[in-house]
């Protein structure tokens, strides 16, 4: 997964209550140097609470937390110099240009990056001398990322960095985040966009109702060798009973729609194509897909919601 395997973030049994509400109910996490780690979950799942504990903004009720070898609840200036943060909601100072704002933040750090280079990294070179009030929402957010980067941090927290972006602004932001990975930064990203996690993350953790439900590389969430789903419509005049025997055994039929679950879809497809040749050669609406991260996510989160309701009643 990572070159060195050195642990940057380590969380054991983290708990946080807001009065009666248990926002975080015993979370374990481990993030290694150089990883892009995505923290996924619906609104109210405990994502931002967890991130704000890791950033040192919020005290916790239980568990052990170590970020860059330090407990964030007791961290000082030296620690903050090594951590960059992009908060979920933050507007930049409207009266300053990106060049000025980045230079201002550079002054806070002992060994800052070059101002112009940082602006280039987030793709704002053309707008470097335009006041932030006249930048688009996406550009302001990228300026926000530049402010987090100019201190040359080892670790970056990005809390829902692309919420509210149009598709092209999101692609640009992804490019910036992928660049951070190439610079060897460790990135802790929260998002509720599955495609974002799939595109960027080395590893993801799915959180709902204050618990981590699954963790691993995006391609492995939900388990290995998950069955592919083959579906098509029966050609007119054909009957499901005429399907070849090995296919028929696994097929579920709803009207003219046939669905087959199969770990290795190729042999089934070969049989199907041969069968279809005898029925006019058409297999309309043919689809072969493996469950995406989103499918697993939705299933997990729905499961957690049911469990949560049960707990609420007992």
């Amino acid at each position: 997964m990572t070159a060195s395997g050195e642990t940057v973030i380590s969380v054991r049994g983290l708990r946080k209550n807001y009065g009666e509400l248990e926002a975080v109910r015993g979370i374990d996490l481990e993030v290694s140097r150089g990883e892009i780690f995505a923290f996924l979950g619906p609104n109210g799942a405990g994502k931002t609470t967890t991130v704000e504990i890791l950033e040192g903004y919020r005290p916790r009720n239980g568990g052990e937390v170590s970020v860059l070898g330090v407990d964030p609840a007791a961290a000082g200036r030296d620690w903050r110099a090594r951590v960059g943060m992009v908060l979920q909601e933050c507007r930049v100072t409207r009266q300053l240009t990106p060049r000025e704002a980045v230079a201002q933040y550079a002054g806070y750090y002992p060994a800052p990056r070059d101002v112009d280079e940082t602006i280039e990294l987030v793709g704002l070179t053309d707008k470097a001398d335009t006041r932030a009030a006249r930048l688009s929402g996406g550009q302001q957010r990228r300026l926000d990322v530049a402010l987090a980067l100019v201190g040359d941090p080892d670790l970056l927290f990005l809390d829902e960095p692309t919420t509210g972006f149009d598709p092209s602004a999101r692609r640009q932001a992804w490019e910036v985040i992928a660049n951070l990975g190439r610079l060897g930064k460790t990135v802790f990203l929260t998002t509720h966009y599955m495609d974002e996690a799939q595109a960027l993350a080395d590893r993801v953790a799915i959180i709902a109702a204050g618990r981590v439900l699954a963790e691993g590389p995006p391609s492995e969430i939900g388990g290995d060798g998950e069955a592919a789903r083959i579906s098509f419509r029966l050609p007119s005049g054909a009957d499901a009973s005429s399907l070849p025997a090995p296919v028929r055994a696994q097929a579920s039929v709803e009207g003219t729609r046939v669905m087959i679950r199969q770990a290795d879809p190729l042999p089934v497809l070969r049989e199907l194509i041969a069968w279809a040749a005898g029925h006019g050669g058409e297999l309309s609406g043919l689809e072969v897909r493996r469950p995406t991260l989103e499918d697993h996510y939705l299933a997990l989160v729905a499961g957690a919601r049911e469990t949560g309701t049960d707990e609420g009643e007992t």
Partner: protein
Amino acid sequence: MSTIALVAHQFRYDQKVFWRNPASVFFTVVFPLIFLFIFVGIFGNDEVEGAGVNTSTYYVPAIISLAVISATTQSLAIRLTEERETGLLKRVRGTPLPPWAFIAGRVGNALVVSIMMVVLVAAIGRLLWDVSLPTGTLPGVAFTLAVGAFAFSCLGFALTTIIPNEDAAPAVTNAVVLPLYFVSGVFIPDSEIPEGVLQVADLFPIRHFFEAFFTAWDPSTTGAGIEPGHLAIVLAWGVAGLAVSLRAFRWEPRR
């Protein structure tokens, strides 16, 4: 960066933001000057009854008091509330910039704008209406400004703790200071104000601050022009504001 360089760095950007914000420039620089011209225009430059000075000599220290309060209490409260609610203060807390350096930059900015307004209003008074400059009472002017800038800055930080959001900030600050300007003799000569009302005004710091500046501008004042009694009350209000700020000032949005 050394600590002094860090405060200077912060101050430099606070200055930029201040001068590029049309609202802060209007309310702190233009607005007081408009009041000065209106009052001297309306009341004419005759002697103010009971004050022993003419209208312009009365209103120069009055408008200076107003401008300093605008540069400190009002500007600080409005901008800090906006920055708290938009997450900017929270973001700054996540950097290695020490909170006291951030605050020192802000108060430094308020102080420099205040000094500029004292000089500007005094110069206009001298040039247009021959209001004599307080050369003999310069220690009084400097001391009053120092105590006032400190106290009214503390009150600006304290005021943010009762302002719920950025939209309410200008309304709340004006609701606090405007009535006090009227009853404290800043807008209306205090000879026109009933004694009972002045007694109420004396509970608050604005009238005492104005009285201290007035003494410094009054040609009949002898000596350094320092008003320890009035300034002690201004300072007490500042210390109370500081205590409230230390307890209740928040860097995170209220939402």
